[in-house]
Each structure stands twice: as structure tokens, then as C-alpha cells.
């Protein structure tokens, strides 16, 4: 088995078989991560550049750790403090980095489509680590992988994606990924934060968080993205919390325990209350752990496409 694509630009390009292959490979890397020596030499002749034009904690550390666990050499680039500030264009920046003989590029950028743009213009394997409000494929893969780990399979599971759908690349990638694996999906949030034509992707839409929570097996609660809120989408954070916040009280009112996920960083007391985030129902930290295994699997499978 081999991936059908030679870059990871989005979930859109992956087949269900690709996703299953990534999961099966991640199972093996998860075992490696629990060994006394958590490192394998597979990518020791590969150099990977991590280009983060936008801030990140989890994704950046997770990619970097995954690369190191595979013995790859890594270069780290953050836009702040670089020549981007002097006005260097994206393609110039990337080509300069690639002339240092880099095999793979992990890129995060605030403009949607940047990874695709680069994949058509530079000779390197491109991995999208989040592009604007478009896609964040590795996050969707690790979310689906965490659901698979918790329930045994993703098929037929009812997954709620709650919160700021409009600005969220995690939401779009999650919808595409879970759909390909046969899950049912419901979106919930203020009407202003639900994109107009999103139901065309075959998802249910609900504006009442209590009904939505009662419906689902898993709730993936998304972050309110302050940095992308130029207009007012809801009156206040307090009101958002009252109407859409996932709280202990709301979960206790349900007739079954549901699983709570969050891609991080959490705004405690806004989309998720602290007691829920720290409860046994939340698998937020398992998601982070699985993130390393998933990224190792993606890097390993894409690196095998590079011929020496």
C-alpha cells in the first residue's frame, strides 16, 4: 500500500484507503513512542523545514517531535524575526530555504491555498500544517484517529462540531475526514458563525447546543478565534458561553456520557468550562499524544515517495 498523493495539502485529496493506511501506520508509531528509546532511524537522510508563517504551539512542537523521533534533520523558521518582515516574497523565502537541500516542507500560513501554490512551484514534498480558514489535515487525522481509538471505529459515530465553524480550518478538514470514514456530522454554533452553504457537504446543522449534545457520541468543541473576529459575530463572550459553552451542567443533563474533544488552545470559560476540560470525559491530551504518531505516519509515508 502507498498513499495516492505525494503531498499532504488537504483531506480533500485523500482517499478513505489513504486515511486507513495513515491510521495503521500511526498504530505502529504509537507503539514506538511507548518504548524506552522512542526513536527510529527511518528518515535519517531526510531534511525537513518547518515554515511557520503563523503562530503555533501544539502543531509546531508536534511536527518537530515527530521529525526527531524519525531521525530526520530539521530546520525551523518562524515568520516573526525573519526577512519576511523586510518584504521578501513567499516564493523567494521558500526557494532560498530549499536551495539548502531540503526534502520536505511543513508549512503553516494565514492565506488559504499557500501549500497548493508551493506544491505547484517548488520541487519538494509539501505538508499543510494549516492554511488560513481552509484546511488543517493533520489535525483532522489525529481527531479521527482519537475517535477510532476511543470507539474502535469511526463509521456510524455521531460527531458534533461546535463553535466557530466559519473561521475554522479544523472544522472543514474534520468534516471531510469524518465523512470519508462514514461518520455522521452535526454542526452547532451561532448562525453568524456557520457558513452559508456548508450543509451542501452533507452535514446536519443545529443552533441549540443542548439538542446537539443530546444527539452526539463525541463533541469536538472548537476555539473562538479572536484573531479572526474583525466583525462582531455575537454580542459578548459571556453571552456566547451562556448559549453555546459546553459546561458540566449541560453534560450532566444528558442521558449518556459523551466524549469531549478540543483541538486547542482552549479558551477556558468560553467554549468549554474548566471542569469539563479537566474531566475524564475529555480526551484533549490524548489527542495531543496521538498527534505525534499521526504526524510520524504522514512524514514516513510521504518520505517513501522521495526517490534518491
Amino acid at each position, binding site marked *: *500500500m*502507498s498513499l495516492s498523493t505525494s503531498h499532504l495539502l488537504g483531506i480533500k485529496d485523500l482517499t478513505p484507503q489513504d486515511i486507513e493506511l495513515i491510521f495503521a501506520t500511526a498504530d*505502529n508509531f504509537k507503539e514506538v513512542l511507548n518504548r524506552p528509546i522512542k526513536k*527510529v532511524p527511518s528518515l535519517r537522510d531526510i531534511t525537513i523545514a518547518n515554515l511557520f508563517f503563523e503562530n503555533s504551539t501544539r502543531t509546531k512542537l508536534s511536527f518537530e517531535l515527530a521529525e526527531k523521533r524519525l531521525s530526520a534533520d530539521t530546520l525551523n523558521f518562524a515568520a516573526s524575526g525573519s526577512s519576511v518582515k523586510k518584504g521578501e516574497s513567499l516564493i523567494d523565502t521558500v526557494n532560498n530555504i530549499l536551495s539548502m537541500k531540503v526534502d520536505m516542507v511543513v508549512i503553516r500560513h494565514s492565506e488559504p491555498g499557500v501549500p497548493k501554490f508551493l506544491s505547484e512551484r517548488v520541487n519538494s514534498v509539501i505538508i499543510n500544517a494549516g492554511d488560513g480558514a481552509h484546511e488543517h489535515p493533520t489535525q483532522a487525522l489525529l481527531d479521527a484517529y482519537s475517535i477510532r481509538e476511543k470507539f474502535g471505529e469511526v463509521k456510524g459515530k455521531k460527531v458534533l462540531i461546535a463553535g466557530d465553524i466559519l473561521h475554522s480550518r479544523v472544522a472543514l478538514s474534520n468534516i471531510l475526514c469524518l465523512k470519508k470514514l462514514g461518520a455522521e456530522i452535526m454542526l452547532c454554533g451561532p448562525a453568524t458563525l456557520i457558513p452559508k452553504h456548508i450543509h451542501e457537504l452533507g452535514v446536519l446543522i443545529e443552533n441549540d447546543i443542548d439538542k446537539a449534545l443530546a444527539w452526539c457520541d463525541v463533541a469536538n468543541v472548537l476555539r473562538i478565534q479572536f484573531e479572526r473576529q474583525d466583525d462582531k459575530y455575537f454580542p459578548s463572550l459571556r453571552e456566547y458561553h451562556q448559549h453555546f459553552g459546553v459546561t458540566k451542567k449541560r453534560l450532566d443533563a444528558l442521558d449518556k456520557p459523551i466524549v469531549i474533544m478540543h483541538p486547542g488552545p482552549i479558551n477556558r470559560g468560553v467554549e468549554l468550562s474548566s471542569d469539563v476540560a479537566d474531566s475524564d470525559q475529555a480526551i484533549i491530551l490524548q489527542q495531543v499524544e496521538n498527534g505525534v504518531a499521526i504526524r510520524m505516519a504522514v512524514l514516513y509515508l510521504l*518520505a*517513501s515517495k522521495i526517490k534518491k
Partner: protein
Amino acid sequence: MSGSIPLLNHEQILLTIKRIAREVIENHDFSNDSVLIGLQPRGVLFGQKIRDEIQAITGKNVQYGELDITFYRDDFRTRDMPLEPSSTKIDFSIQDKKVVMVDDVLYTGRSVRAALDALLDFGRPSQVEFMVLVDRRFSRHLPIQADYVGKSVDSIESERVSVNWTEKDFQVNLYTPKV
């Protein structure tokens, strides 16, 4: 000319397992400081048979694990398809233990090289030995030899040794391609 020559039939393999298991317990006490590790994917079935035979002879439990070496191989990316990993199950420490690694066929020695690397990531064994069902002599790329051999065969590069294990039937054949 092409075709297959049987190297070992079912009965011969059963005899080989009995013989080789007795050979290895002359040097090892598997209930104490020795452990058996089968190499994934094709060495584990032979490894399990050896484990069962040793347990039947000694009446004592054998510490047995399975090791996958995919991520340690040196032919990653020279193949058309990525190598598909199997599972690793070693639920005991190999630190200061005598390890006997088990595989089905020893050919170039590259798998054994990778297996040694993989094994050392689990600890520092006091000694490592290697057991193999079929040894394809004179075809090594690396200075590696087996300590326990089921059968030695002389073969050329274009030939293929295939070990077939099913629950009831074991067979080893030598395939010669068309010339």
C-alpha cells in the same frame, strides 16, 4: 527452465523444529535469563513453533516476543512501495538477557542488521544469537551468520526461497525463474 523444488516438506519441518529446539536449550535456560524474539512478519510463526516445542520439552514458560524491523531497514525509499510495518510485542525487559532472534530465511543479512539495531532500542542484551529455518549460504552482503540453522541451501540470486506456513501444512520451496 522454471519450477519449484521442495526443500523441506511438512514432516521434515516438524523434525527440524524438534531438533533445533533441543539444540538451543543446550545453551539457554528460557525460564531464567534467555528470551526468544521472533522477527516480523515471517519469522514469528517459526518463532511460535520453537517456543511451543521448548515449552513442551522443558515444561516451563518461555519469554517470547515479536519484533518489527520495518523502520530500521536500509532499503526504505529504494522500493516502489513503502514497507508495511507489523506489530512489535515485547512485554518484558531484554536488559542483560540472552536473546535468541528467530527468522524464517537468512539471505543477505540486511534484515538481521536492522533487527540488531531495533533490538538495542529495547535495552542492552548480554548476548544475541540468531536462529533461522533456511540459510541461503554464500549470498551474504554483510558479515552475519546464524547460530542455529534448520537447513542450508545453495541458491543463486534469481532464485527465491519461499516458506509457507498454514495451521496444518508447512512447506519450504525453492523457486527458479524462467531462463
